[in-house]
């Protein structure tokens, strides 16, 4: 005869493990669902053709994702170039030089930056970054731009990624043993030298990983980028021209995707592409981080 406590124990154990398994299976389920939706497209075109072709005419059944993929990579790379140095420097300052008071102020600042919804960054981008690109940056480089450009997308995205990367960097710098740094100081290194040779070198895999995860986050960001990037289908090397990243493609066309044959399949393929790329980057770099934290 099972007691009431034993029965409730069994029920809740079942519930707990079911919940965990559900969450862990989620990416697989999402992947399979999106794959089935994009299967019609994949049966008509090869994967290589879809990715490398830049012929995008949904009405004629031509789906080339190259312009979208390049736009995505371009915006992501630009944002990385802006955000990475700031994160690295701020991370060092907050873990090595900053006073207790500044750290107490910075915690909520980083939290709020991370918590602001992407649409708010989008509004700010439209109000500030777009005119800034059109009226200040473009004349500086002797070109013309409407402001709705890859460069604007990169700037807005950089600010969105900073709190994300910075949080990881702070955690990584904090795992460097204090004793190692003190040893180098006692050998006559200046404070900065010990930071450079001990802290940065010691957390090298961690730094690379958080940069990688920051890139992945930037790659999937939708609304803020979409609001400032211009959304024109073209593969361009000029950052002052408009781009059309993958997430924006999905978000912009959901309304008409059921009225054109294969269009829904193409958009779901874009989502699948995003999922696979981002999940892969995450799995690889998270692995590095987990390895460093276990040491």
């Amino acid at each position, binding site marked *: 005869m099972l007691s009431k406590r034993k029965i409730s124990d069994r029920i809740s154990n079942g519930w707990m493990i079911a919940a965990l398994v559900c969450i862990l299976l989620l990416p697989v389920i999402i992947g399979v669902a999106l794959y089935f939706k994009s299967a019609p497209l994949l049966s008509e075109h090869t994967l290589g053709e879809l990715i490398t072709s830049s012929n995008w005419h949904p009405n004629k059944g031509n789906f080339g994702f190259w312009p979208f993929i390049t736009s995505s990579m371009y915006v992501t790379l630009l944002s990385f170039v802006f955000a990475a140095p700031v994160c690295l420097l701020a991370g060092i300052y907050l873990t090595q030089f900053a006073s207790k008071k500044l750290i107490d102020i910075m915690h909520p600042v980083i939290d709020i930056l991370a918590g602001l919804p992407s649409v708010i960054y989008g509004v700010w981008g439209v109000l500030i970054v777009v005119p800034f690109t059109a009226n200040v940056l473009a004349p500086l480089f002797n070109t013309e731009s409407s402001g709705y450009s890859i460069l604007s997308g990169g700037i807005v995205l950089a600010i969105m990624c900073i709190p994300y990367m*910075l949080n990881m960097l702070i955690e990584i710098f904090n795992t460097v043993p204090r004793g190692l740094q003190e040893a180098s100081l006692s050998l006559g290194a200046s404070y900065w030298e010990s930071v450079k040779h001990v802290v940065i070198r010691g957390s090298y895999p961690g730094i690379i990983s958080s940069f990688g995860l920051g890139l992945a986050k930037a790659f999937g960001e939708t609304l803020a980028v979409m609001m400032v990037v211009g959304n024109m289908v073209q593969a361009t090397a000029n950052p002052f021209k408009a781009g059309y990243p993958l997430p924006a493609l999905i978000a912009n066309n959901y309304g008409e995707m059921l009225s054109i044959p294969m269009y829904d399949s193409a958009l779901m393929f874009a989502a699948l592409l995003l999922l696979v790329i981002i999940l892969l980057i995450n799995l690889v770099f998270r692995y590095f981080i987990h390895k460093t934290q276990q040491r």
Partner: protein
Amino acid sequence: MKQAKLIEEKIFKSLSGIATYSLIAILAFIIVVIFVKGFNALSFDMITKTPKGGYYYGGEGGVLNAIIGSLYIALGATLIAVLIGVPAALFINVHLVRHKKTQTTVRYFLDALWGIPSIVYGAFGFTLMLYLGMNASLLAGIITVALLIAPIVVRTFDEVLSKIPIGMQESVLAMGSTKTETAFKIMLKQGFPGLITAILLAFGRGIGDAASVLFTAGYTDLIPVNLDEPAATLPLAIFFQLSSPIPEVRERAYAAAAILTIIILIISLSARALSRRYSKTIIK
């Protein structure tokens, strides 16, 4: 030689200081811009009325439909995410506590899950919706957002639970409690401040996310009363109104953005205050 070393230190120290303070400046800049632009257009009507006829041409009304819709979706989604996420986090820390390898692997996958962008959840929610024969509705939005924020609940709560000393569990088990009692009577209570943070974090993410509800929740000028009705959301209200060619409508997008920012700020700050307040009652 020594001179160069010190100059280098000075340069980098000030550079990194500038980088840090510039983050405060950026945050202040964003908030000031949103508030200045938003408060100009913010009126009592904005938060107490739904859009009336001709609203999108500059007519009367407000964004009450979107405020309520967003609250419904975020509340519903948080509830589901807590029902899935809390037991999962407890399981990792109670049942798996002796299996370090499994624990690490599970955490590794959960971390990776956190990185999946919301537009992918949106696309998945849409696929699921078509498969089940549902329309864009409050329910579809709630489910999609719940999937999006469940990993956040698990990982944030788990982070706090993992810091509870294992001796606490051992002593409870030694007195004859079952694993369930250990999980819900001891771990849940000890980790309560962490749970509050996790819930508020997830709620904030849910209320501000646009890409996942874009496909699934639809948009309407009415306040939804049933789960199968479409619901407007604040981020989408901002997004749609901002793309309008009419200046008055764009002004309202700024006002709606100010409302959303205030909500997010309140959530952020109360998460800190509440978790500090509840951490007084736990056993150290």
